[in-house]
């Protein structure tokens, strides 16, 4: 399979903190993904509807009516978004928080501070990821 035939996958990054968005953008900015950004849950849902991303990275603690868990649940309960891979990326590291995340049917739960390398690994090896072929050599 040639690189040219590979379609750009859509990645949605949701975090209210500018620095975090920047970090994630840089981390996953090796050309594989078309990146979209939202600063709160409501924006996120709008983009989800519009863009139908393949991967969503959600911060949990955000201002507004919807937090990350709500968005996660909504996505996961939508039959049209079955293939979407949702990663909860959050500073909440307690066991109970993890359990809440799993209960919301997140595909992965990553605690900040996180290793960018590990995050890339996680997303690239997700089920349904097209990892035949070459990846960006930047990936360590």
């Amino acid at each position, binding site marked *: 399979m040639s690189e040219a035939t590979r379609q750009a996958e859509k990645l949605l990054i949701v975090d*209210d*903190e*500018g*620095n*975090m968005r*920047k*970090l994630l953008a*840089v*981390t996953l900015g090796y050309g594989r993904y078309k990146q979209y950004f939202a*600063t709160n849950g409501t924006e996120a849902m709008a983009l989800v509807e519009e863009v139908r991303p393949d991967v969503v990275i959600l911060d949990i*603690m955000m*201002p507004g009516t919807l937090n990350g868990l709500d968005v996660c649940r909504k996505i996961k309960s939508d039959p049209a978004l079955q293939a979407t891979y949702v990663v909860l990326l959050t*500073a*909440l*590291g*307690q066991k109970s928080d993890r359990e809440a995340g799993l209960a919301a049917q997140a595909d992965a739960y990553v605690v*900040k*501070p*996180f*290793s*960018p*390398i590990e995050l890339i690994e996680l997303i690239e090896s997700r089920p349904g990821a097209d990892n035949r072929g070459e990846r960006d050599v*930047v990936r*360590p």
Partner: protein
Amino acid sequence: MLKNMSPRQHTLPYQYAAWLVLLLSISITIVIAMSVRDGVRTEAERDFSFYCDEILLKVQSRLDEHKQVLLGGAALFDASQSVERDEWRNYAQRLQLDEYFKGIQGFGFALLIPAKKKDLHISTVRSQGYPSYSIWPVGRRETYSSIIYLEPFKGRNLRAFGYDMFSEPVRHDAMSRARDLNMPILSGKVRLVQETERDVQAGTLMYVPVYKKGVSIETVAERRLALRGWAYSPFRMNDLLAGIVPENKSVRFRVYDGEVADTQTLLYDNLSQVSNDNFVLKAERTMDFNGRKWTLSFRQLTAGVGGVIDYSKAYITLGSGVFASILLFLLIRSFQNTRQNAQRIATSLTQELHDKVEAELKLNERLKLQSAALEASANAIIITDAAGVITWVNSAFVRMSGYSTDEAIGSRPETLSRSGKHGDYFYADMWKTIQAGETWHGELINRRKDGSLYDEEMTITPVLGELGEVTQYVAVKQDISARKRAEQQLRQSEERLRFVLAATGEGVWDWDIQKNQVSHNTRWCELVGLDEQAIVSDLDVFERHLHPDDKPVVMQRISAHLDEGEPYISEHRISRDDGSTIWVLDRGEVVSRDAAGKPLRMVGSISDVTDRKLAQEAQAISESNLRLILSNSPEGVLALSSTNQVTFCNDQLARMFSFQGLLSDKISTNDFIERLGSMIDLQDMAGLRRSLSTGSREGMFKIIAPKRVIQWEARELDSQELHTVLFFRDVTKDVQIDEMKSEFLATAAHELRTPMSSIYGFVELMLTRTPSEAERKEYLQIIYDQTKSLIKMLNELLDLARIEAREGKDFKFVSSDVLGVIRKALQELNLPPESHPVILEDETDSLSRIFIDEEKIKQVFINVIGNAHKYSPKGGAITINLSTESKDATDWLRIKVSDHGMGMTKDQAYKAFERFYRANTSGEIPGTGLGLSLVKEIVHIHGGSVELNSQVAAGTDVILHFPLNLQPMKGDVRYE
């Protein structure tokens, strides 16, 4: 035989008989008398009736007589051509009216005069020698009548001359009827013209019609035409009827005109003077004289001689009858009495005899009884003669002595029973006493027939004869061997007791209640502290040594034992003679009572129990102390027995769970858990049950209302009663604090993670990739900023923690000028004046010196003014205004920091002072979220307050107040 019968009873029926006869005979008499009376009355009535009839006949015949006279007068007219005055006169005189015909007032003729003939008539009569004659009353009438003849023509009768009777209604009526019926007619009651004022009587007139001769007078019309006049007679009633009823004042005879009898119609009353109208008999008769009815009324009056009905016959009958009855009665009674007397004598004689017999019988019985009693006595009895020879013994003696009755009688007592234990003087003394006639009483030892000895109590009583000499001796003896033995045993056991008591060291007392004497043994005296060895005294010694506080109770206990048999066991204090006090255990019992049950003797012992008592008291004190401590324990304590009953709970437990009466209700562990269950969460409940059943040692549960957290611990003890003890602690506050701490830590950690993430992430990226120079610079800048932020956060955290922990104790308060501090803060901030000019307004008149920690307050202003700058990203002036204010009776220094930045919402303003709260988390505006928390803490410790007003897109005001007084106090934060 003759029983107890009173003599009276026999004749009782007879007594009744006499009275009965009397009653009967009197009744009969009365009946007869009554019938006699009735007979008398009937006869009287009959006589009266006959009398009345007689009178009636008399009246009728009298009237008839007068009628005849008048008929004669009319006949004269019929027989003659004419009847002249003098002819009439002669006729009348011949009749000799006064003599033969009583009552006729006159004998006259009234002429009928038609009106047209009147004048002629008058003139004719006048010419006859009566010049003043006229017809009266005057008046025009159709027909006139006139009395032209009236004999005797004198006296009263003169007045009637010329009177027109026809003009008067009553007379007219009679005259008309006479004319029409051709009958003699009697008029109604009239007042005769002859009447003067004197002796007025009722009157009546009789008319007989006179017709023309040779004319038919069959019909009324013919009669009217043929009438010439009337022969008439006036009657004065009294004169007419005088003599009919003799001047007999017993009968009142009245005549009424007509059938109605009243004063109007009364014609005649023979007793007009008499007013008494009481009568015994009365009768009425009616008389009819050609249509004129007269009612004759007869009354037999009660007054007057012979006027009453003569009932004497009846009275005589009654009297004689009663008399006879009484005689009869008396006769019968006298018969009865005789009989009674005879009976009574007979009965009393028999009674005497009866009594005599009874007395004898009684005596015999008594004698029999006596000998039976003697015989039956448990005591042996000997009767001897004066010489001391036995004449009689009872069976008890036989039993006691072993000798038979035959062996005994004829022998002497001492021969039979002398034991040899007593000297001769003993028996001599006995004899001397009884021979002198005195009773001897004593104890001696006798010998039985078989030789065995026995103790005896004996009383010898001499029997004296009439002259005072001894005739017999009666000896009553009792075998007291058993008693003697018992006495000895008692003595022995008493001795034993004394030994025992001496050995045990108990004080002994022996109370003779009757004599009120107590003997106390040596040990008793020792205990009480007496010097004497052993004493006998009255109850006083005992009472004197009782402790005054205990004395009433002890005395009460003693009487309770004496009276009600309550066991006497008393612990009380004794005041010893040396002044010390000891506790004793005093026990006693009544050992003998008299026949009535009254206590005679009480014995008891006392022992020293001071040690034990003191120990008890100490224990009680320590127990109550413990109890006090426990009840004041802040922990709830609950003890359960091995059988799962609640045996103890302290006040705190009851308060903790708002239980009442845990102990009193005797509840089990399960009940307790049930009660708890209503207060705590279900899950906790299940957990608690599990813990308790599995023998867990501790646990925690939450109470729902009011919200509390209770921690419990269980301990197992060895006793049955306190098998398990549960301690409950209210850890609500601790839990809260823990939670707050955890929350804080969690939040802090979370906040720290955020900058860390950027740092870590970008560093890794830089290490694993080869970014461009520009990119690298960008990343490094981010790392740098985030690190700074981290450091600041850490510092602020530390500050906050320190301030909280130390509570301002390490603050250095100096008198300082706030304006100066603000200026220093501004210097450090170094705000760009172009975008953010600072305007300082001092309205305090330089009175802004207060006691503050300069460093801390500088920090406050750095934070507040820093915020004003941070949150006005588009620039804008920052105004700092200082003023003084008087509020709530205190003077304050007021500092307001205002900006024209982005402001915040009400929600953001509310949370502004919360730790780590940042209104803007986008990363555009740096901050830890701790700034205002720090400000709040510091201002608080200075006794001031801080508040925040804001409007979105307009700006924010932060207002600080500091008290202008000397001492800092705690304040609080207000939100707006």
